[in-house]
């Protein structure tokens, strides 16, 4: 079953004098439970596409159906609810609230759920443990390293148990061990049945997915299946051994 169907998606930014056509007639589908990497050089429109997939932005033209519903026809409130309970977004720039603690940041999406869960704090703590930040729960984001901030952003994306996880360069700021850990988290989530779309410019990262789409000049240049994805768990263990032997 197709979870995502893109049909001739166009995105043109209009500024005072210039029109920039960033996405050009993009069409592809993603099945439920897939792990997809989107690759491309800087400025090809990867983030723009992610924002459209995450229902944050609307295409200038074309159709986007999520679970069979045409996103273009939904109103603002419906899109907000959808973002809240179906989609987990890891932004390229993390976007954490510096005033709130790490724990509060992770809990933030829960504020906008229909029913605030009794065990909100426990859920957030569990996710922080999964990304290895238990001891940093009471820190402020500006007291963390870039990699730690990225992991907080990942934990926050997962708090509402989203069916679709969108991650924009989630390993961009991480060393190879932490990068492998984060990818291991995504692979585990994928094994549990979640659909994952990951943006990266790094082929090694991309090959942890089952499928890679290559964007070039705002168009799909390549769409191929990875028959044997890399195993992030194994890499993480190998990195750990390397650390030990040093």
């Amino acid at each position, binding site marked *: 079953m197709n979870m995502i169907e893109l049909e001739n998606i166009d995105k043109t930014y209009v500024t005072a004098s210039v029109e920039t056509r960033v996405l050009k007639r993009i069409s592809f589908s993603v099945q439920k439970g897939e792990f997809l990497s989107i690759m491309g050089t800087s400025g090809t429109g990867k983030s723009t596409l992610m924002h459209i997939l995450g229902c*944050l932005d609307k295409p200038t033209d074309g159709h986007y159906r999520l679970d069979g519903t045409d996103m273009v026809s939904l109103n603002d409130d419906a899109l*907000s609810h959808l973002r809240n309970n179906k989609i987990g977004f890891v932004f390229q720039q993390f976007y954490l*609230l510096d005033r709130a603690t790490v724990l*509060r940041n992770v809990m*933030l*999406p829960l504020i906008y759920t229909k029913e*605030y869960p009794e065990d909100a704090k426990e859920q957030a703590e569990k996710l922080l443990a999964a990304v290895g930040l238990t001891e940093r729960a009471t820190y402020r984001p500006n007291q963390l390293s870039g990699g730690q901030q990225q992991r907080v952003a990942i934990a*926050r994306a997962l708090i509402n148990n989203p069916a679709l996880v969108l991650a924009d360069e989630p390993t961009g700021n991480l060393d190879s061990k932490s990068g492998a850990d984060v990818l291991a988290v995504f692979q585990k989530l994928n094994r549990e049945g979640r659909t994952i779309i990951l943006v990266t410019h790094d082929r090694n990262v991309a090959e942890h997915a089952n499928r890679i789409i290559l964007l070039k000049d705002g168009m799909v240049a390549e769409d191929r299946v990875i028959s044997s994805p890399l195993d992030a768990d194994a890499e993480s263990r190998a990195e750990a051994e390397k650390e030990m032997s040093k």
Partner: protein
Amino acid sequence: MKISKEIILSLEILTEHKVRTFLSLLGMVVGVGAVVVMVSTGRSAQKQIVDRINRMGTNLVIVSAGKSMLIAGRQRQMNIVRTLQVADAQSILEECPSVALAAPAVSEKVNIRWEDQNVNTTVAGMSVDGFQIRGIKPQSGRIFDPEESRALKRVAVVGSTAAANLFGSADPVGQQIRIGKVLFEVIGKATPRGTDVNGLDQDDVIFVPLETAMRRILNVTYVQTIYVQARNSRLLKNAEEEIASLLRERHRLAAKPDDFTIQNQATLLEAERETTSSMTLLVGSVAAISLIVGGVGILAVMLMSVRERIREIGLRRALGALRRDIRNQFLVESAILAGVGGMAGIGGGAILSWAISRFAHWPPVISLDAAAVAFSFSVVIGVFFGLYPAIKAANLDPIQALRSE
């Protein structure tokens, strides 16, 4: 639960810019403070005057000789009128059904001597009923009785100020004083009554029996005032009318204007209430202006806050916040901001009005209702002036907000 969490976060944000927040709140603090100060001091001043009016006596109607006029807010008798008689008082008592008591009185500044002390004080000749009508009681000694009045006895009851001026710390009761040339025995001292409606000291007086004053001191056949007590407070107006028509008949005025003036306590209170209500209007408009200034301060700080937190707004929207969630968050913030300003204003205003009432020797009046109204008003203003920034924030495009620097 989730609301309270957001409020705590909002408060953290506001405390981040302490100086800016404080400055923007200043208008609100001053506005609410002004309301509290003006209402409180206005009320204690009013209470003071009402107390004075009530202290004059119970169900009191005052008949004075001649046409008196209000000059610079005080009653002034224009010229000496000799038509008001002791017999008029007797007649008022007998013929006016709404009247319970009537006491004629005269008064005049006279030189008083005791040993080598020499003071100028008002001597009031008054019948015994006058003490009851005006609520004057002996603090020590006694007041004279009707028998002494009829017999032209030379006895006196001194007011506390007059007593202090004349006798210093000595006990006045039993002393011999000279009023004009006549020797009197002090038989009592009256309880202090404070100042009257016109701000005059009611205790700088020496009471003597009416007949004694008229014949032995002033040598007059007419009186200046008749103090009348109505049967109850509802009959004040009736008493006034009955007295007026009786006196016009007795004085054979026909087409001539009144040669007397009648006032009753209710009218005095009513006049007082009118002054206060025009004061209230003034207070209201000053307060409204300051609160609007305060509201503009809130508007400014909230607009700045929205601009500074544009990324946060984008993020919240991206994470699923509805437009109305964002709007409500900013409304709650500006309401809290305004409420804090209002609280500070109430605190400052209460301290200031307490200080003023102490300084002016007014009874302190804590207007809790005014404070409550001012506080709720400040919150309403916070919501009102927060509405525009909040709607502005709510209508931001999520992705544009996220991407803006």
